[in-house]
């Protein structure tokens, strides 16, 4: 029993996409830009050459926000989307009927259709691969060259994640929607 979350030191991100590849190789994700559990959002630069705004060109690594109050779980008519014992929002492929309510409900656009399992899939913090083997990192965290991610247990006050969140300012995405994400972006 844990309550898994993640902090993202997003300013470290250089948009190399190591995390995307590691995720696909670890979890057997299909290729294709529209088939991804995680991604890096890139904002096109503002200004005219040579007067460009450096600050406008940001890289925002993202994935399922693992909401404590997940709209995708709420709307699922077959209970295919559920919270597991560690607070991770998971999908049961046997129950998913591809109605795609969850895709519409997710404010973070984190869900996509996996054509092999015929499931609306999403990031599950490597729960059925790495965590199931007793490992303590997700594939995206472990591989990252600039160490953007810190994965850990929010219920354990001694975890590095809890410590970082106590010590550093952070924000969550679309906080006003009340989804209570468990991904925290460090400032």
């Amino acid at each position, binding site marked *: 029993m844990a309550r898994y979350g993640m902090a993202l*030191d997003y*300013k*470290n991100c*250089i*948009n*190399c*996409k*190591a995390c*995307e*590849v*590691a995720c*696909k*190789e*670890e*979890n*057997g*994700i*299909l*290729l*294709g*830009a529209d088939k991804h559990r995680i991604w890096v959002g890139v904002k096109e*630069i503002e*200004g*005219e*050459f*040579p007067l*460009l705004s*450096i600050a406008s*060109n*940001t*890289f925002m690594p993202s994935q399922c926000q693992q909401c404590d109050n997940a709209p995708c779980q709420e709307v699922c008519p077959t209970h295919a989307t559920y919270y597991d014992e560690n607070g991770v929002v998971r999908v049961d492929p046997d129950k998913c009927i591809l109605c795609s309510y969850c895709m519409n409900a997710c404010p973070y656009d984190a869900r996509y259709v996996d*054509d*092999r399992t015929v499931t609306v899939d999403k990031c599950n913090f490597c729960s*059925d*691969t*790495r965590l*199931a*083997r007793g490992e*303590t*990192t997700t*594939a995206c*965290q*472990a*591989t*990252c*060259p*600039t*160490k953007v991610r*810190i*994965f*850990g247990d929010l219920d354990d006050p001694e975890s*590095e*994640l809890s410590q970082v969140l106590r010590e550093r300012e952070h924000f969550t995405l679309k906080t006003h929607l009340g989804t209570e994400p468990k991904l925290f972006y460090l400032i």
Partner: protein
Amino acid sequence: MAVEISRRRFLQGSVAMTVVGGMAMTPSNLFSKEKVHGEVSITTKTGTGKATLVPTLCEMCVNKCAAMARVENGVVTKLDPNPMFPKSRNMLCPRGNAGIQELYDPDRLKYPMIRIGEKGEGKFKRVTWEEAYDAILNGTDKFPGLAKILDEEKDNRSSIFFCAGEGMAEHTFKIFYEGFGSSNWLNHASLCLRTVVSGYGVTLGAYPMADLENAEYIIMAGANRAEAIVTPDTMDFFKRTKGRGAKLICIDPRFTNTAAKADKWFPIKPGTDLAFVLALSYVAVMEELYDKAYVEKYFRDFNKYKNHLYAEGYTPEWAEKITGIPAKEIYQIARDFMKHAPKAVYYPGRRSTFAKNDFQLRRAMAIFQALGGGIDTEGGLVFGKKLPLKGHETVAPMYAQAQGVDVTRAKSKPGYDDCAIVSGGGSWIAFRNRVLEGRSVYPIRGMFLYKHNPMMNMPNSAKTAKFLKGLDLNVVIDIMPSDTAMYADVILPECTYLERTDPVKSFGGPEPSIAVRNKVIDPMYETKPVIEILRGLTEKISKPLFEITKKYDEDVQDDIANRGEEEVYKDFDLTIPFRHSQEELNEHAVSDYPGAYEALKKHGVFYPKMEEYFKQVSVNEHRYYPDEAKAYSVAGGKPKTPSGKVECNLKSMARKGVDPMPTWRKEYEYSVPEGKFRMLTGRHAQFTQSGTANNAMLHDLIHENYIWINKRVAKKMGIRFGDLVEVSSSAGKVQIKAYPTEKIAPDQVFFIHGFGEESEALTWAYRSGGNDNAIIEDVVEPVYGGAAMHETNVAIRKV
């Protein structure tokens, strides 16, 4: 554990191929025809059952990062970072993660093959290893073998040249070259970092590393560490940018991902960095901001350089006109750099030669760095320590008939025809053009090529094609049916890095270590590691070639009369270096370090006191050496030149017609004719040159390259995103899709290297995007003969 459909089909396919093996087949049969572009996964979900973990070193680029391969039921299912290696810290980049796709690429070279069609046509037949070796020695009805060529050339071993790309087993291949006795060795250096390595080498005595973990102020000019990843620099650095300890000044004509992480970005005019550095040096010297104690102790000819800067008038105002960087900014950068020095770095970089003045640029950068005293010190440029390895037995016979390196002395000029200095790796582009234009000193007849793709990696592909067609015997050792492999007479398939153990390597630096690439799984198909390929080849050719030497070499004839043939042959026995297995050679190489061989097997990494020093300090980070044991400073700041000084004025260079001090010349100025564009090339994080072009995973991240063109210019020309444009120069033309952006100047265009292969045997890479070297003109850098890659102007037309 489920093996996904495509991989299973691909393995089944290989069985079918074995059954029909031996028959003459068209290339479409020999190379894979599996063209599954649909919703079929090529990735494999890792399992939770039994698995073995094998420590290895990545070969998806040159960095050699440590990886841990997960093997389930004989299939490699995942590559993870191996945290124990100081150089790569604890990471694998996207290419490192995609190494599995190289291993299981259905297009891989699987069997030895010999040419049955016209040279360059790409028609081969599958043969046994013995048949391939025999074809190399004795030829076929399509091409002559070594025996005929060397007999005709009267044992001039230099009529066969050798070339290799960078890699851990390049060493093994080079041993073969040394035994063979040719004088012509061409490596990637003249298409890559020759000028930077040599510029720093002659100025500071070594090509140093940059301590980006501790530097407070960094100028990154013409280096793009966010996209051209170098370990540990990339990891150390970008955790500290954006107001977190390291100030970054990015100098690049384009707005790169590195620029996105900078405090300031200045789009310099291409090829004018030398003027920028000279002006920085001018400010540091004239305003007396430099480290006087360091200069006093470790500079040679400082006053001469000072007078030179003054006499030539290298002021920021002067540089502003040339570089486009405002003078007041140059003053500011020079002052800030010197304020932070010695914890300030003018980043040396590791890239191709872009401009003709690149050697002088590197000299000027090294001297500017040294003015701040940031040499051999924490936060500056460092030399570090290296753990020595033991060598092994090789042969280097003397062939009296083998002529010297194929270069011509310049008439009435110091130096050579093509460039001032002939270095160990040669000048590829000058060599190619000389052979092509019939200017060789003696006939160049054949080539042994290892892990190298000159069709893609050398400017002016049309000339390279003609050059390769003109050779009598091309032997290609590679893992992929590259554009160059299509010009082979004999193809010897190597296994990928995950299927072989390579020579153990020592990695120097502040945190030195030894690391090894351990074999993860057995070689697939009939592929072999290069050491085994060369073992078989030398067993076949060594004695017959010695017979030719006996026939023409009077020294050998005399020697045999004195000592007897058996004794003399011992010096010419090419099989000697390849008799031992790589594991045995590695065990011997590290035998001075107790426990090292076992540690390398188990962890992939070894350094003295590793067990005491290495520990995890956070979920992401590890300690390799305690601070007091890190070798930031090994000689108290003393340069490694023979004089022990920073060399400002190189008289030996002057004798070869090279400026002894970095000097700006009028012809270096940047200009583009009206209506044309300066062509820029470069890298990004998801591709390593052409070597990864057919990787399904990386190809999925970027299907094809796009040409960057300024948005406003594109609008005027009626070019929209995705429109096909033709880019042409005197070297050739390519068609490529457009990406209008404000990240590039109105008179420049850019696209990344590594796309647009023409080999039909490459399912993913074939004609995907454009090949930069099809249009980059072959401009030779005058000092070391490097290929200057940013000197080409192109025309653009909407197709």
